[in-house]
């Protein structure tokens, strides 16, 4: 688990820096996809444990809070809360409404 967390810390850091410094030059009509958000959604959809999903949301949210500029007056922790909310939302949706097909032995 510790290895996984270190991996998240590094990968989200690189993604955030790429998003704010590299990909901004390739915006389409002023829009740049939020890669941290996409990565968190991806991990939440296909990740194996809840702990891993929560940590991805916490780390991703923290980096967005640090590196996205709060000119609209968002408080620090805004993106962390949003991503945790996303984690809970996806968890409820996946547990209640999504069934993955499994092979049953007859």
């Amino acid at each position: 688990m510790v290895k996984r967390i270190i991996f998240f810390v590094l990968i989200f850091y690189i993604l955030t820096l790429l998003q704010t410094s590299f990909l901004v030059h390739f915006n389409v009509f002023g829009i740049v996809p939020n890669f941290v958000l996409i990565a968190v959604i991806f991990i939440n959809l296909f990740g194996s444990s809840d702990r891993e999903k929560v940590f991805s949301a916490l780390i991703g949210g923290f980096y967005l809070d640090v590196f996205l500029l709060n000119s609209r007056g968002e408080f620090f922790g805004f993106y962390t809360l949003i991503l945790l909310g996303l984690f809970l939302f996806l968890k409820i949706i996946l547990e209640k409404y999504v069934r993955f097909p499994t092979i049953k032995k007859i």
Partner: protein
Amino acid sequence: MPKIYGKIGLMGTLLGVKLHQNIKKVVVVLILLSIFIVVFNFTGFSRNVKDFFFLISSPIQKSFWQAGKSVSDFATGILKTSTIKKEIEDLRFENQELLGQIAVLTELKRENEILREALGLGLEKESELMLVRIISKDISQDSILVNKGEKDGVSEGLTVITGQKVLLGRVGSVYDRFSEVVLISNKESSFGARIPEREIDGIIKGKGGFNLSFDLIPREKEILENDTVVTSALGGVYSQGLLVGQIKTIKKSDVDPFQSAEIKPAFNVNNLDYLFIITNG
């Protein structure tokens, strides 16, 4: 039958325990998060954290910024070769026109100086400028991060311009070694502006996504596409005479007492590396 009831009872107890444990976990996480948010926002600790991360990341961000700019320029060069050729021709023509205007203005400047001297008027104090470098950009919020902060003498509200005296925005949040610049296209931004050739005043509002609108222009006034818009002293947000952009499209309605226009900003953040902060105004 009692066996089934027993099973249901056992499942209920297990479910209850699991639910109870989950609620406990959620409560713990919420308490920790609340503490985190309170500590970071109300003690000003978030500023130090941001400053620290900007400091350790700025070399990487500089490299990413340069790499992004080079790749983007290369791609644009390939994709828009024919457009660029035409643009170069247009710019050459415009350059010749401007050179002619400079010659006239230089003569006027000399005349002005002589007259000022004769009348005993002092020359206007030149602005004090601080050179800053762009580190990163937040497109969704029309703001950028520059490499000078409170320790370098930057304070909130200072005007930021390009080397060509084009208005870019003003300083928002200031950290120890970095500052955030809120662009004029930010949705929170509005200030007084005018078309100097026609002496028409109005209000510029940021629309987000590097778009600007020029509002509250009296309907009876005639404005044309490509008219130049500069800042006015109205409202006291920016000093007057800084270039904002050109009129792109005009919106006029018979029922509306005012007309508005879309402005094409004179700056392109993608092509900028260095900016100036006016430290004395």
